């Protein structure tokens, strides 16, 4: 049994069995312990200046997302405006990290975001199920990249992963990464379908070995989506991966993060698991749609001392 910081064998991806040997040699995760640790960190009390910092940091880390069949140009345009200037009454409010849309809406998002600095992220690879032939998935990726996506959020083939065909999952990520060209690749593990923390740790390492720039919990279409313990296990994985390879990988919990309190708990988790190096939008993102408005309400509350009604934040 080897621990994570022992070197990765050079032939780790040479066969299914080599990959299996490595991934199954990673230390196990004790479910009770991992959940207890996440729950303990969730009791941190974030007040005043710390809360102010956390709210602004959380806003700047949001991948503001709309992934619905009913999405239209109008909806995306509204979201882009919101992302660039979340609080029209307060110029000091940071902009979000990215707008996250389906591939066919990337061009529209790109047009409206312009040189604002807000990136365009696109889901791809037949999101959310990932059930399509590889050439179709790659075409999906290339289309999004050609339309101007800065970041691609791919889904792994959970079916292959769960049936132990790790090499297939690995190869697919490698090819998607190649299709991304210069776009950043976020690899969605869909942890709600992987079921165990051991699987989350293995899938995290698999995605990092294959060249993902970010590992992301969920599509938001499967319940449970992001949870604190899952994110904890993924943060431990990126920490250990950097220690082993020197390469830093980002983390993105997505789905189910709705309140300021939720967001602060994720930031506490980052702070006490991997620290300052990950506390920027370059290395940690929050995939969310309704979270932003709650952050804005709490931001107002901190500056004015009272809560505004929901009519004082924009509904997009």
């Amino acid at each position, binding site marked *: 049994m080897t621990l994570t910081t022992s070197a990765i064998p050079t032939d780790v991806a040479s066969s299914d069995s080599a990959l299996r040997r490595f991934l199954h040699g990673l*230390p196990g995760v*004790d479910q009770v312990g991992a959940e207890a640790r996440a729950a303990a960190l969730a*009791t941190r*009390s974030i007040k005043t200046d*710390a809360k102010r910092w956390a709210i602004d940091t959380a806003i700047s880390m949001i991948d503001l997302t709309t992934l619905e069949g009913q999405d239209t140009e109008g909806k995306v345009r509204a979201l882009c405006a919101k992302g660039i200037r979340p609080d029209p009454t307060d110029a000091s409010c940071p902009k979000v990290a990215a707008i996250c849309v389906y591939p066919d809406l990337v061009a529209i998002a790109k047009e409206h975001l312009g040189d604002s600095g807000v990136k365009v992220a696109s889901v791809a690879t037949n999101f959310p199920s990932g059930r399509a032939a590889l050439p179709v998935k790659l075409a999906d990726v290339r289309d999004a990249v050609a339309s101007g996506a800065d970041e691609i959020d791919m889904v792994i083939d959970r079916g292959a992963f769960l049936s132990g065909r790790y090499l297939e999952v690995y190869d697919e990520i490698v090819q998607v990464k190649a299709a991304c060209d210069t776009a950043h690749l976020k690899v969605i593990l869909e942890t709600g379908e992987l079921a165990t923390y051991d699987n989350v740790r293995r899938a995290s390492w698999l995605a990092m070995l294959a060249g993902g720039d970010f590992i992301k919990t969920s599509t938001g279409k499967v319940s449970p989506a992001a949870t604190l313990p899952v994110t904890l296990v993924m943060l431990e994985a990126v920490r250990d991966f950097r220690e082993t390879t020197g390469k830093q990988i980002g983390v993105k919990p997505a789905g189910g993060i709705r309140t300021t309190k939720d967001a602060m708990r994720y930031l506490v988790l980052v702070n*006490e698991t991997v620290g300052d190096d990950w506390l920027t939008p370059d290395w940690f993102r929050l995939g969310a749609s309704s979270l932003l408005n709650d952050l804005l309400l709490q931001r107002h509350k901190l500056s004015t001392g009272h809560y505004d009604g929901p009519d004082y934040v924009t509904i997009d």
Partner: protein
Amino acid sequence: MAGKLFDYAPAPESRAIVNIASSYGLFINGEFVEPIDGEPFKTVNPASEEVLAEVTAAGLQDVERAVAAARAAYTNTWSRMPGRERAKYLFRIARIIQERARELAVLESLDNGKPIKESRDVDLPLVAAHFFYYAGWADKLKYSGFGDQPIGVAGQVIPWNFPLLMLSWKIAPALACGNTVVLKPAETTPLTALAFAEICQQADLPPGVVNIVTGAGETGKALVEHADVDKIAFTGSTEVGKAIAKAVAGTKKRLTLELGGKAANIVFDDAPIDQAIEGIVSGIFFNQGHVCCAGSRLLVQESIADEVLERLRRRMSTLRLGDPLDKNTDVGAINSAAQLQKIRELSQIGEEEGAQRWSASCEIPERGYWFPPTVFTGVTQAHRIAREEIFGPVLSVLTFRTPDEAVEKANNTPYGLSAGVWTDKGSRILSIANRLRAGVVWANTFNKFDPTSPFGGYKESGFGREGGRHGLEAYLR
């Protein structure tokens, strides 16, 4: 690790919720009374050295009066009351404790120095749970297997590390079985016991069923040696426990002792490593290491020792030491100047004996009693820090090569209160646990308590069990 960007602002729990009197008498026969021959002494907040209140060290005559009150209550009321009626009082006490939990948690942290997150999330829920649990037993004693008759008057002496929790471990089973008690809380932490006295009044507990005599060793000695006490229950140091055993020898008194420990926390190379690190940390730094069952000896398999230590140090650097009332504090104050002195001495000895000392760098407040989380590596079985109970946030790390060696080293101690085993292999957990001579063996966790689970020691860690059905035995005949 926990870095500079996200700096948690102070988040102090308000102490306005507690109302501490400037001085306290003794709680005898349902009333707070002035002492006959007792002397006043002060109890301080160990985090600031501020005097919190003046309390009374009960003298011989005070103890006499308390035992007489307990005897009268035993004979006239409590032992005659049907179990289901006694249960009502215990349920009521449990509910009042829950209602006043926040207040009691703050008071506990003020007097003891433990972080509010522990008094709030660990101590108080367990205190209430203990009363609820034994309340449920009160009308079912004949199914306990230990008889259904009470013993009489119990003299109970408790330590300062979990003041209210140890009170509940002592009082709840005693009362459920129909005994009455005279309880002596520790000298440095009397305040929550006095608050509990108020709760007894609030619950309309018949006078004399619970009597609380504050004081130090002399008061405890008077109680232990009192001829009309039928049962002694003591939790504290092995040294005092031995003295009590001598004092009680040759009398009709029954005795249970829960004493010191030097628990081995055994980490195998297939352990769930991140959770094992958490378990090592909570094993020794929980409650500043003032825990008789603390995992103060880390036995780690040699093949992973370096990596475990590196991860442990990294984790220790995130521990937040400071104001016990701050909700984000992980490590609070050492309970007393005397205890701090003892921890310093043993740590000094550890260095002199050649072990390597490493402490997390943390800012130590100017006032109060503090000791940073510390780990000693290169420790051998021959070192005093591997043998003696330090009762502070100091971990001694030893290594082993095979399961047999782990068991041998773990058992090679005069103590035997608790132990921990970390491995992903279920069969190994069972085989190792069977061979460990310790009252509690935790598997892939540490320092977890539950009122339904018996707790107690082997060898010099004492005898008798508290908690669970087993905990009734000491109070029934």
